[in-house]
């Protein structure tokens, strides 16, 4: 346990001193502000282009903007934030492999699971913090301009996407353990997402894929019951645990040079 805390302290100092922590938090703040801002500006932008469109014969009906628009933006923008997050932290383990900094740590008697556990924990903490910041800011603006009351199951839908993101982020570690090369680890993470996404295209098996948690529109409008996703959430949690176990299992058997 002492080793785990020592190594985690090192991870936190690393992300603080290399500026990653700051950049990540700034990014989530930015996204949080952008979501309602885009929603707010949509009618104004439509007005700007509607004159041109009217001439070409298109009619723009007056658009109603409300909290739902802001939250729709949230679920449109969060995948981008997730991608940036993954690219930014994709090298969290491979950089140490490539540079060889782990050799001294392991020959000092560091338990290998401790290394992975601290990396998992840091990723978990940063993603949670980032999601929370982004969510709270979007919520605050929506509350100020409109009314969040019309968005159904707000916490649940936000949690769904958060869980999906967490799952994809935890794929980084086993991918890094397998491939040891940053590019390959990222490609692998991308491939895993692609497969998960393909699965959601088939209605019969879509609940077996964590990627189905990305589709939350129906819950927000109240068109679907949240109990539908109980199974998918269970699967995603299972996948996260599997990622952790698998990576530790493989890492214990890897030669490190």
């Amino acid at each position, binding site marked *: 346990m002492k080793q785990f805390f020592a190594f985690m302290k090192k991870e936190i100092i690393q992300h603080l001193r290399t*500026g*990653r922590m700051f*950049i990540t938090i*700034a990014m989530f*703040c*930015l996204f949080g*502000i952008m979501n309602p801002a885009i929603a707010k500006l949509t009618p*104004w932008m439509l007005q700007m282009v509607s004159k041109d469109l009217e001439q070409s014969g298109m009619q723009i009906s007056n658009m109603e903007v409300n909290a739902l628009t802001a939250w729709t933006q949230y679920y449109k923008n969060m995948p981008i934030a997730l991608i940036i997050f993954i690219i930014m932290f994709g090298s969290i383990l491979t950089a140490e492999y*490539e540079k060889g900094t782990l050799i001294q740590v392991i020959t000092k008697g560091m338990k290998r699971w401790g290394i992975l556990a601290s990396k998992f924990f840091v990723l978990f903490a940063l993603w949670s913090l980032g999601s929370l910041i982004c969510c709270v800011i979007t919520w605050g603006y929506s509350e100020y301009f409109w009314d969040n009351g019309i968005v159904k199951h707000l916490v649940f839908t936000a949690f769904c996407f958060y869980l999906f993101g967490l799952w994809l982020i935890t794929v980084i570690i086993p991918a890094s353990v397998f491939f040891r090369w940053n590019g390959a680890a990222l490609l692998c993470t991308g491939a895993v997402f692609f497969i998960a996404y393909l699965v959601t295209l088939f209605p019969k098996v879509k609940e077996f894929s964590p990627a189905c948690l990305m589709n939350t529109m129906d819950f927000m409008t109240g068109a679907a019951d949240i109990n539908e996703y109980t199974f998918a959430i269970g699967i995603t949690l299972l996948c996260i645990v599997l990622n952790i176990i698998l990576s530790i299992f493989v890492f214990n058997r890897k030669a490190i040079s």
Partner: protein
Amino acid sequence: MNISDILPFLIPLILLEFSLLGYTLWHILTHKNYKHGNRTLWIVITIVGMQFIGPILYFIFGKEEA
């Protein structure tokens, strides 16, 4: 569109973007070596893409792993 409508967005956005820009420029100027590219390139990218994409690009592709 009323200016008071966008002000709540504008102020924090401007603050955030300038602090991001300032921090990134400080980081670029206090480091000699980069993973890819050189100092001039990164300063240009950071300033041109200052709506957060420039700084993020720098921190992903420019900053040396430590």
